[in-house]
């Protein structure tokens, strides 16, 4: 019995000392654990809070390159799960990372920016390389808070082999799209896949289509949010909702049970001819099935002349107002937004870029990048909505897909939007 007491005591002491040691060694003071020798006196460490897991490896390569020419700056990339929530928590407790990526159209970010938590970069030399149209698109209340590097858009993935073997030309109008769907369905092929299990995808689709097809939608929704109109006043909403239901007649059997990952895998194995989602899926599809012959075309409008595609800023870099080592952070941003760095970063993902003169990679999306370069774009309308609203829209739409009740859906939308800015 004595022995066990002694053992217990030693264990406890060891435990306590380990706790103390652990607490001390990884406290707020920067600990250079990146394997290099002990930092020189003048070495500055900055944390790059990077939100895209697909980019981690290429960013690490870029960081190494940056550190070669800037040996006094140590950059540690930190890519956590649920990054947006973590970022918000940290900035609100005055522990913001020195440099980070975020999304200018994200409502929480906008709120933080308006509260002065993010550095205003509007006339900063860091913005000099940015395409003017994109800089304009990323403004919040007329100011730029993030340097846009990568852009995203949504479009229709299509299986080239299935299109060819059924003699289908790329649709340029909605009528042609439906015709193509008819043809495929008659041939026993699932025309579309919809991943309605998660409201996030539905939200993206609704926001995209609202922006693309409903006239003056930003102004109208602004009126509704200010209590000056009701959703139901606008005659265009009913056919819009109907179109969301109509296209799903050409979807797979279990749309509500299919998640984004499931749809991606099934598209990659040729179970469907078309799939509407963002260009961010290209890498994953290619990895899942390198033999798949696929590309994207823009989601068509009623008239081919009106064709435009939604653009959102997918990767953008900024600094917090109360962040440390701002000079070094700015130097890092400067490096990361050069033509060479951006081309390397976007090479595998293939996103179009917000930086001037960058050749964007992948041939699968040439028709989309062409639209972007031609300026036939529009920003995401949800950037003007208060936090949490876009999720509600997604969920309400998901509900409509289940009940098929358009009247109830429009009422739900009205409840979501009406007068919300005055509460």
């Amino acid at each position, binding site marked *: 019995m004595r022995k066990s007491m002694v053992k217990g005591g030693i264990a406890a002491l060891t435990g306590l000392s380990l706790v103390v040691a652990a607490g001390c060694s990884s406290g707020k003071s920067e600990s250079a654990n990146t394997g290099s020798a002990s930092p020189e006196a003048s070495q500055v460490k900055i944390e790059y809070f990077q939100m895209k897991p697909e980019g981690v490896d290429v960013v690490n390569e870029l960081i190494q390159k940056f550190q070669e020419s800037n040996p006094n700056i140590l950059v540690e990339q930190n890519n956590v799960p649920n990054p947006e929530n973590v970022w*918000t928590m940290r*900035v609100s407790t005055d522990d913001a990372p020195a440099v980070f990526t975020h999304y200018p159209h994200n409502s*929480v970010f906008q709120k933080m920016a308006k509260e002065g938590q993010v550095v205003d970069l509007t006339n900063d030399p860091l913005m000099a390389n940015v395409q003017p149209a994109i800089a304009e698109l990323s403004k919040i209340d007329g100011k730029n808070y993030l340097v846009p590097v990568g852009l995203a858009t949504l479009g229709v993935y299509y299986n080239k082999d299935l299109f060819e073997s059924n003699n289908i030309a790329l649709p340029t109008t909605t009528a042609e799209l439906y015709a193509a769907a008819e043809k495929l369905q008659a041939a026993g092929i699932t025309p579309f896949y919809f991943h309605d*299990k998660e409201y996030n995808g539905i939200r993206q689709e609704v926001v995209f289509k609202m922006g693309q097809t409903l006239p003056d939608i930003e102004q109208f929704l602004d009126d509704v949010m200010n209590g000056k109109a009701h959703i139901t006043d606008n005659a265009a909403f009913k056919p819009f909702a109907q179109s969301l239901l109509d296209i799903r007649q050409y979807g797979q059997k279990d749309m*509500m049970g*299919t998640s984004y990952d499931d749809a991606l895998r099934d598209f990659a194995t040729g179970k469907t001819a078309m799939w509407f989602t963002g260009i961010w899926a290209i890498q994953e599809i290619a990895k899942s099935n390198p033999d798949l012959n696929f590309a994207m075309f823009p989601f068509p409008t009623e008239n081919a002349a009106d064709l435009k595609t939604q653009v959102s800023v997918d990767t953008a870099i900024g600094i917090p107002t109360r962040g440390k080592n701002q000079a070094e952070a700015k130097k890092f941003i400067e490096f990361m937004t050069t033509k060479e760095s951006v081309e390397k970063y976007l090479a595998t993902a293939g996103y179009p870029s917000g930086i001037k003169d960058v050749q964007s990679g992948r041939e699968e999306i040439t028709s989309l990048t062409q639209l972007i370069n031609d300026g036939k774009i529009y920003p995401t309308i949800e950037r003007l909505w208060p936090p949490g609203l876009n999720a509600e829209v997604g969920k309400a739409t998901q509900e409509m897909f289940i009940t098929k009740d358009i009247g109830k859906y429009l009422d739900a939308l009205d409840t979501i939007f009406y007068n919300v800015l005055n509460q």
Partner: protein
Amino acid sequence: MKTRGFGPGAAFALLTVPAVVLYAAFFLVPVFIGFYYSLTDWDGFSLSYKMVGLKNYINILQDKRFLNAMSFTLLYTAIVVVFKLGIALILAMLLSQSLKLRGLFRSIYFFPAVLSMITVGMVFNQFFYSLFPPIGEALGIEWLSRNLLGNPDTAIYGVALTNIWQGFATPMVIFIAGLASVPKDLTEAALIDGATPVQRFFSVTLPFLIPMLTVNVVLAIKGGLTVFDYIVAMTGGGPSKSTESLGFLIYQHGMNEMKFGYGTAEAIYVFLLIGLVSFVQIKLLSRKEAGQQ
């Protein structure tokens, strides 16, 4: 009866000090912080907020979404507790007999508890998407031929099944321990008296099982009422909010919908609910307890 040096009173009190200090400093403080914010309209990150008193609490009682979450959570808990503990008890009884390979079986059946909930959720996601539907189609059962999780009426059963698959293991172990505490001489005496297995179970075994049953029921109810990980991994609260549990709703409000004060007020209600339910069932079960005290 005082002894030299430290009286037993002081010694006992000292034994409680580490726990009390830690608990007060690192748990009670956050709880009170949370309670404080439940009286505000704080969104979770802004620099400014207003005190609103009991407004959150009143609004919650009229909030359909909260009431839906409440009814979902209660139904879910009922299903999970009954099946989880039922299966655990049956397995515990089977695994308390003297069988060969008993140890091996016990190890295998504990395995589900070793996996993380997220892992289990993801694996079962695949079952529901690609394994069960073909079976449902072959058998001609309509609701089984689609993803259970994609249908608001059946999603609750999909999540419950996953929870039960993983959740029976720990109660089973606790029941095995409880069954082991039944004195052999009593069971033998009952056998000699000619009691049937059912009679034996209810008059001899059950009273000794009560402590473990109490533990299992309290923990199972708590787990059911605060279900969160499975919802996140499998349905995200959907389709269309039909599987929003109370725990999930609190998280949504606090972290994603920027309504932290409101979410914490909801949590206080959940706290009261769990407390009430546990209190009632402990009282009910302690009447039938065997053993000392």
